[in-house]
């Protein structure tokens, strides 16, 4: 309820008048007593002194009341007018030289400017007159972007906060950069085909590419209603979350920098081990060769941890980008086979690998997939028993190729299986006995799911575990990939970067 001085005014006025009358009575009593003692007669006193004094004082008090309570009443009405609550207060009219000279207009303007968002002074705040004006005022005041699309996916309304631009033909374009297949257009196409009502949301959607000016990060919510009222079929709401995600971006920069710094010494350690091993090989005793292998395996593992940390950071911030190509799983495995065999032999485990050459090809990012395979094999080595065998099998399974890694080690209690793919989860026994970051399975799941595949585990406590992932056969997704992939046909992905295929390049 807005406070109005008018509500209190009669009571205030009564008190002031009562006080004023009381003071007059006191003055007259004192004056009369003094004059009577001085020899004045009563009639002279009443006619010449008491009545004039009473009239003059009453007039004075009325004027004083007007000067004090008038401005207060105007101010209270101005404050009530800008208050967000509904009220029937008429805004004060402060036009005129009197109000300017007395400073009342300035006070009212100050009250209005404090209330207006941008601090601009306005003596006559605009009040929406029609429901449409009011709706527009509301839509342009709430700090979220609102975009309405018609059945042809054309923008028919966008408020001031919406991330849109007009092209040269005056058509409104939405500035939202979606990642991969999970885009507004893909969702709309699916909704138009299969749904009457549908909704979807995206987080951390960019309004421009990195390094472009005014880039914001938004959460986006879209709702679709087939043949919606007023020709509005799709409503899109964007919430600017740049400040919220900014710290994540800084963390990402820090992690990228930290990874670069860590990789420097790792390069040197791995490289010199390679050089030394090569140069000293003829002179080394068998046990010294073994020590070299252990050093080499540990350095490789360290390098893998850095890649895991970088990829987790990218995945969590939606920067993980895969470059899917047609790959043969046996080729992918071959690129890390030596490393994995060395890791197994230094820990006294055997690797049994069955990956038929004639398996259908899969759509894979070789670099990321080798990271997943290394994580799974590494885990199997860690959690299997001394001298145990780790079985690696790839086989076709309907429209997918399944890759499984089985160990016959300690197994996993069913109570913890559900947590295995969580970030920083370290298995029940690993905290004391086995090294690791707790990121390997988390990033493996992220990578496999980004391939459109699935990953899972079956385990029996005390008997061992099987981790398996499935990837779609290339031919089942080839059309989709060709449509979205602008890759250079001459580029070969390697397990540690890319290199141009020279038979195709400059041929």
């Amino acid at each position, binding site marked *: 309820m807005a406070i109005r001085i008018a509500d209190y005014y009669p009571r205030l006025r009564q008190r002031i008048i009562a006080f004023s009358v009381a003071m007059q009575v006191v003055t007259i009593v004192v004056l009369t007593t003094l004059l009577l003692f001085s020899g004045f007669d009563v009639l002279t006193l009443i006619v010449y002194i008491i009545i004039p004094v009473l009239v003059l004082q009453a007039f004075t008090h009325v004027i004083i009341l007007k000067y004090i309570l008038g401005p207060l009443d105007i101010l209270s009405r101005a404050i009530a007018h800008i208050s967000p609550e509904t009220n029937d207060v008429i805004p004060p009219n402060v036009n005129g030289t009197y109000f300017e000279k007395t400073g009342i207009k300035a006070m009212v303007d100050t009250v209005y400017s404090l209330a207006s968002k941008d601090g601009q002074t306005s003596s006559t705040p605009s009040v929406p007159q029609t429901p449409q004006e009011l709706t527009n005022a509301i839509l342009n005041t709430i700090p979220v972007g609102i975009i309405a699309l018609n059945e042809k996916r054309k923008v028919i309304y966008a408020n001031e906060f919406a991330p849109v631009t007009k092209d040269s033909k005056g058509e409104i374009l939405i500035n939202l950069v979606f990642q991969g297949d999970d885009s507004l257009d893909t969702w709309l196409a699916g909704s138009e085909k299969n749904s009457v009502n549908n909704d979807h949301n995206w987080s951390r959607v960019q309004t421009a590419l990195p390094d472009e000016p005014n880039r914001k990060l938004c959460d986006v919510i879209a709702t679709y209603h087939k043949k919606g009222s007023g020709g509005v079929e799709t409503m899109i709401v964007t919430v600017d979350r740049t400040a919220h995600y900014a710290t994540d971006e800084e963390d990402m920069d820090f992690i990228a920098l930290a990874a*670069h710094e860590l990789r420097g010494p790792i390069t040197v350690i791995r490289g010199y081990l390679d050089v030394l091993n090569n140069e000293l090989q003829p002179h080394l005793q068998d046990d010294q060769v073994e020590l070299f292998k252990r050093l080499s395996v540990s350095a490789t593992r360290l390098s893998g941890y850095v890649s895991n940390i970088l990829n987790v950071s990218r995945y969590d911030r939606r920067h993980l980008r895969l470059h899917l190509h047609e790959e043969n799983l046996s080729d992918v495995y071959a690129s890390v086979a030596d490393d994995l065999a060395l890791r197994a032999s230094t820990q006294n485990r055997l690797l049994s690998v069955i990956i038929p050459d004639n398996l259908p090809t899969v759509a894979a990012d070789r670099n990321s997939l080798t990271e997943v395979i290394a994580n799974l094999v590494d885990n199997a080595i860690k959690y299997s028993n001394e001298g145990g065998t780790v079985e690696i099998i790839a086989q076709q399974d309907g429209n997918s190729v399944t890759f499984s890694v089985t160990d016959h080690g300690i197994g996993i209690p069913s109570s913890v299986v559900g947590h295995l793919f969580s970030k920083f989860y370290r298995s029940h026994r690993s905290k004391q006995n086995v090294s690791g970051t707790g990121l390997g399975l988390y990033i493996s799941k992220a990578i496999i799911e980004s391939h459109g595949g699935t990953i899972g585990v079956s385990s029996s406590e005390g008997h061992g575990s099987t981790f398996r992932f499935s990837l779609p056969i290339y031919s089942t997704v080839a059309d989709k990939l060709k449509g979205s992939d602008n890759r250079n046909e001459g580029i070969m992905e390697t397990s540690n970067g890319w290199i141009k295929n020279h038979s195709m*390049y400059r041929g």
Partner: protein
Amino acid sequence: MSAIKTILIIEDDRFIGEMYVRSLQQADFDVTWITNGADGVKAATDKQYDLLLLDVMLPEQQGTEVLRKLRPDNDDKIPKSRVIVLTNFDQDDESRAAMQARADGYLIKADITPRKLIELIKSMQTVE
């Protein structure tokens, strides 16, 4: 086309530079090592090398800048040379696309040991 013989390494880190020089020389490559970008551009254009191994984080002039100077748009100053960028920075999509226009390869140093690098170079051919 023939096997790669002459290699120019542009790398500021002494440990890493010496590591590549030592291992590549033992594999019978003719190796020159330069530690900064400006001298690297000069060396690459003064003499023809079959292969350039280029670091990215170089003092004063970054590897990407060196690459732009050696292979500006529509004007290849080292048409007879292959270029492999060796770095420990992962690429985002934009820099990847830019790099693919000018370089023949991009490898993470921490992931590729000298032995693997030599295998890769031996599998490559000169431009002509």
